């Protein structure tokens, strides 16, 4: 009774494809095609044309891409998001690491309170987060202005061009540190208990354990967090466009590549050029994300 059916099962798995699996994925693939593949292909198609007053829609090959590559406004935006990736992302990841290691430390109390409190900002839409912080930053009417008036300390204008990237970076850091902390914390929980027991026997303290045992184990999780942070940094749109109400001269219509593409398309009707910018931005994002991912693989391939 045991041997015969299991042999037929073996045959089934070895020779017959299990098409049920495909049927199960088809509904997802349908919405995936409508919501992601079709717009992507359409963007590529649009980017190869130009709409002219005379002659209508004509094929121009890669002209739009060539124009984008020498467009100083595109580079201004790209520079802003690149600074974001180089400064905001490391600050956020380090804060999240410190918080996760603290949560995992045996010399810590009240863990569940800290865990939920640090994670809570993730529940706030980036639009609302930007509204709140915008109110707080205000030099004349916000909390920063009040503190300056009260203490007499000359706090710089956080909505000025010197400080605006830091102020926007703070909004993202506030929103996503707790989320990344939870990812790292979950990865720390997966480390087998025996390793700690061995370290205990060797007399290693909490800090030594964090640096030499926990941190190396977090490598893949850190890479993943950085990859996602890079993807969202390159897409930066919500925070600057909300805060631009308070600082219209500082946050220009081309402050980030995404804002530039949006404004060209919605207010300039330059759909073809805007599509080229979108595709180019997607390409740059994918290359950056892939580079970090490959670096992580190379660095942690032994684990």
């Amino acid at each position, binding site marked *: 009774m045991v041997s015969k059916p299991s042999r037929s099962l073996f045959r089934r798995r070895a020779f017959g494809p299990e098409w049920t699996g495909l049927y199960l*994925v088809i*509904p997802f693939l349908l919405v995936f095609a409508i919501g992601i593949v079709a*717009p992507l292909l359409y963007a590529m198609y649009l980017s190869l044309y130009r709409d002219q007053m005379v002659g209508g829609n004509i094929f121009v090959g890669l002209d739009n891409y060539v124009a984008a590559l020498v467009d100083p406004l595109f580079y201004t935006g790209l520079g802003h998001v690149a600074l974001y990736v180089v400064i905001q992302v490391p600050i956020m990841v380090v804060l999240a690491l410190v918080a996760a290691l603290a949560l995992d430390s045996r010399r810590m109390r009240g863990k569940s309170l800290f865990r939920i409190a640090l994670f809570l900002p993730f529940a706030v839409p980036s639009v609302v987060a930007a509204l709140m912080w915008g109110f707080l930053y205000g030099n004349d009417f916000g909390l920063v202005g009040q503190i300056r008036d009260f203490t007499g300390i000359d706090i710089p204008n956080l909505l000025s061009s010197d400080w605006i990237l830091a102020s926007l970076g703070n909004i993202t850091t506030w929103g996503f540190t707790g989320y990344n902390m939870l990812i790292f*914390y979950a990865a720390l929980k997966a480390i087998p208990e025996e390793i700690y027991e061995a370290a205990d026997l060797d007399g290693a303290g909490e800090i030594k354990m964090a640096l030499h045992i926990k941190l190396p184990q977090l490598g893949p999780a850190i890479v*993943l967090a950085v990859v996602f942070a890079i993807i969202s940094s390159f897409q930066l749109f919500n925070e600057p466009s909300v805060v631009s109400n308070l600082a219209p001269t500082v946050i220009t219509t081309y402050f980030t590549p995404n804002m530039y593409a949006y404004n060209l398309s919605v207010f300039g009707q330059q759909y073809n050029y805007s599509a080229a910018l979108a595709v180019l931005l997607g390409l740059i994002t994918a290359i950056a994300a892939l580079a970090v991912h490959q670096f992580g693989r190379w660095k942690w391939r032994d684990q």
Partner: protein
Amino acid sequence: MTQLTTARRRTMPAHRLSVPTILVMSALLLYCVLPFWWLIVSSTKSNGDLFSTFGLWFGRAFSLFDNLGQLFTHQNGIYLEWLGNTVLYAVVGGVGATILATLGGYGLASFTFPGSRKILGIVIVAMAVPATALAIPMFLLFSSLGIVNTRWIIVLLSLASPLGLYLMQVFAAQAVPRELLEAARLDGASETRIFVTIVSKLLAPGFVTVLLFNVVAIWNNYFLPLIMLSDPRLYPLTVGLNQWNSQASGSSGATEALYNLVVTGSLVGILPLVIVFVVLQRYWVAGLAAGSSR
């Protein structure tokens, strides 16, 4: 009782509380909670007090109920419509996206068929495609088909969740043993029956986590509805609130009265998700553990 304490002492040796750790974490906690405190305090203030009294403490008058009354009646109660739209988009889109991701993730994890690896690879690559970069072509494509500016286009476009499929695939591979499926098939159970009676229960924790992710993502989405919708009555909260905000800061005097509505509307708008977060927090840790392990 004594046994319990001794057993506990053996497995968890007493560790001294680390004061620097507590201090660092308390500073982080203060940083995370302070804007919430500001929002709560500010929603109890009138427009005048909002600008003339200290931001981190209550104003001269307690105006929370005035603000709420104004919030729900301003422009014929459009805020309630925004709230309703957000709930509709997040619940219908979130549940739908999670069902599709669950079926697909299970299909990819527990069945072997030609192309299954390729499908997963494409979906993972799609996670790196900036969603906001797609929104403008999306608008052009669907407006040429004449289906923008409707509620159901937002729901339809929210159904595709590559991250959800990826998480469910990872989760199903761990949670559904192949031997169990094979045993059930030997007993003559149909695939539908196997899914309904066995697999659905095994996948339930993963389902809740992915549902949380999807609901939060749609609830907080701004760019897609901003581009797709032109009728204010179809807006979700994010788009509506920022419209009030830009009206309030755009001109002085007459429309300045909107600031207290933006503040109170923000508080009311984040309350449902904050409650969901606190009540369901254990699902986040479980789900993120599955996602980060790869």
